[in-house]
């Protein structure tokens, strides 16, 4: 995607204009606008960040700081299914690292990578806020609590069998 092609649609721009009015300043609207960009473009490329900075009248660095701070914002394209393994304290104590290693083995990729068929991306994230169900794996926006190597293998097998159809 080049700078010319990364453009919000007219509807989106209208929505953003409406959103900005709710806040004391345009900078406050940055987070929801970043979510919109991720929804529209799949990930937030550098070009998208430049475009957002322009739309909101911010400095590129102000956008970059927020994008890189939160793990939910992706700067690289991800697979169709994003497997985010929480490795924060609670999950770690309940075997998150062993789980993550096992999943990497099943998928045949390393942490942070995407499978060649473009189906799965596996990522390590900080606390998902569901420590009661540790270890937690977030698959796209759905939480899988008390995940085990077996349950994750089953999930991966099923998705592969379905050919990625939801």
């Amino acid at each position, binding site marked *: 995607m080049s700078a010319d092609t990364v453009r919000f649609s007219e509807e989106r721009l209208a929505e953003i204009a409406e959103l900005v009015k709710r806040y004391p300043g345009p900078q406050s609207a940055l987070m929801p606008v970043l979510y919109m960009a991720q929804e529209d473009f799949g990930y937030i490329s550098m070009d998208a960040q430049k475009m957002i900075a322009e739309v909101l009248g911010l400095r590129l*660095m102000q956008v970059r700081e927020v994008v890189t701070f939160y793990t939910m914002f992706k700067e690289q394209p991800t697979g169709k299914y994003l497997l985010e393994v929480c490795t924060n304290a609670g999950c770690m104590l309940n075997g998150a690292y062993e789980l993550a290693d096992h999943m990497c083995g099943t998928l045949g990729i390393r942490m942070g990578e995407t499978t060649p068929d473009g189906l799965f991306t596996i990522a390590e994230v900080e606390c998902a806020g569901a420590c009661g169900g540790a270890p937690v794996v977030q698959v796209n926006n759905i939480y899988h609590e008390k995940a085990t190597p077996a349950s994750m293998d089953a999930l991966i097998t099923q998705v592969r069998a379905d050919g990625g159809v939801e």
Partner: protein
Amino acid sequence: MTQLFINDQEVDVTPGTSILEACRQNDVDVPYFCYHPELSVAANCRMCLVEVEGWGKPAASCCTPVSEGMKVKTQSETLAKDREMMMEYLLIHHPLDCPVCDQGGSCKLQDYTVEHGASKGRYSEPKRAVINYELGPFVNTCMTRCIHCTRCVRFADEVAGTGDIGVLNRSDHMTIAGIVEGALSSELSGNLPDICPVGALLDKPSHDVSRPWEMTSHSSTCIQCPNGCDISIESRGDQVMRIVPVDGSPEPWICDRGRYVYDAFRSDNRILSPMVRQDGALQSVDWSDAFDRTIDLLKDKKVGILFSSQWSVEGHVAISLMRDALFPDAKVAFDLHRRDMRPFAFEEGLAMTTSQIEAADQVVILGSDLRQRLPLLMQRLRKRGRAGKPVSRIGAMNYRTNMEIGRDALIRPRDWHGVIARAMEQVSELGKTAAGFDAWLGAVSDRHEAGKILADALISDSCALLVGEEIRSHEDAASLIHGVDLLMRACGHAEAGNDGRNLIPEGVNAQVLSAVFADARVSAGDIFAAASAGELDALILIGSDPVGDGLFPSAAKAALQKVPLVQIGSISGEMADYADVQLPAAAYSEIEGTFVNMEGRVRVATNPIKSLGQERPLWKVMMRLIQVMGAEVPVVSLDELRSAVCQHLSALSDAWCVSNQDSALIAPNRNRDAAALPKARTDSFELDVVSRYSMYREGMWARASALLTEAGELNALDDVLVHPDTLAAKGLSAGELVVKSFLGEQCFNIGVREDVTPGVLFIAKRGVAGDLSDVTAASIDGGAV
């Protein structure tokens, strides 16, 4: 005032002061990393913890305001333990490479580790390493050493105004990173290594060169722009190693031009011994041989004297004494940037201090590229902008400022009359008028809407006009300045105490020069014309380069080809091609001398480093010249010379008593009777020519500096620029085009940029398109010559 107790001692501070500032004001030591008096408070290093009686936990003193009766303790066993833990935490990822780090010896982290840290950390796991990034020619990064105090981030946001440094990622992945790969887009970038409390951002040019404790420093004045910042020149032996700002001076920063010009002090371009042209080449000779040749060239001859304003006041007075003794009829010129020599209603110099300008209700920039010319004043305006105070601008180019300009108008130099006339009409409607309005208005038929911006600003209680080079170098400058003067009088901004008439000078010492050389002064162009016409036998150039700088390069070239040249100065430069004799004069690092900046602030440099070669202070060279030419030597010591200075400027008599250095400001000249009326233009060229001042290229010193030259290349624009409409109107496109002016037809590479006013030919690179600087008007025709 708020009363509180610091370590049981009662102190009074202004309400709202932070505890840390209260401690600093009362000489109580509190350690800190992220706090900086000139930047906003971030409170992220937690090093400045203090105890407040009755509070459950220690308070970060930088962000805790004082309150009445507060009892603060800066030393206790608990605090010692807290600080030890903070140090241990900050040092977790910090490499133990002090022996190879340039910061070693002037490092806060090192000092505080000794003072507050434990001798050993408990962390034995792997340390992280961080990728370095490119921050341009002046800043070296070693980001593994960074402790994330974010001073650099705040500096880029708040002072430089570029906002191109930020904090990426979080927790132990957190890094400080720049967004502009290749070059930090700030003229103040050299301050980053100064504010970094550790060795993460370091000075690139002096990287791995010397150690802080090997250097001695002496304070001096920077002569690279009229702001005349206080500088500390750090040297090792007789070599200048660095130039840094002085703590406690009016500006805490210095610009890259003033800082990195230091490599010119030891460049091959210095004149370090007397030189005489023999068999077509300059040869090093001893002083007596050089003087013999000088006598041949100058004795009983008619000469023109041209000098730079960068010498000390003593040097300038010595030039004046030399003229009186040897060439009493000779005309002198010191300004290569003035076409109109009629007296100005307000002469060069500021009526206000920079802090008064920052605080004024309205500031209007009239035709000046302030960011390049006066980076420190621009920084003040940025500060003002952040505080919500307006800055407006009228000029020929949308010069980059790194701040938001409230109201901005692009005009051609020929529109200035119309702008002033329009403003006069508008203030007259409000009943504000001055004697002379009618005569001035009557001589101008045009009106330009940009005048509204000026008139609206003038109505405020205090208005600072910053009149720049586009007006000062105008062919009809005296009438424009008279017009502006009338406007300021009409609106009550011309009385003492409320004077907002600031004419930005070309260099330092402007007020002194207009007093010392009031009668003998002519335009540099006149001297070159006289030399070319055979009216002069020789030229004496004292530290100026009229081919590389100024508005008369082709006239200067013609004159220099015609008559012999005696060059006296510190830098040889392009004048080496013309000089028959070169006499070395000491650089500003090597002299005791007095300097007056644009505000009229007087500074005296003392304890200089010793001469690198055979160069002598300019005043001694002048006196020796008088002696060998057979006249009576007027002064034989610096004290006698200073008495002579006082005859011209009684205000300086206090300057040399140490106790009295900060006394009176020297006010710029006012000529109440200078009532020049606008002249009609006579040429028929459709484009106005404006040339750009580049802080990296202007002046002999900057061109002799390899560091500034390198930075100048990064910041270079096309040779000559015009607005796209200017070319479109003629059906031309950018590229090699013919420019017609009174110099004839010349071919230039012409680029387009929306920032240029339509109808203006903007010379972005004086060196390349130098000859065009001579003209004020031109036209473009298609095709090659």
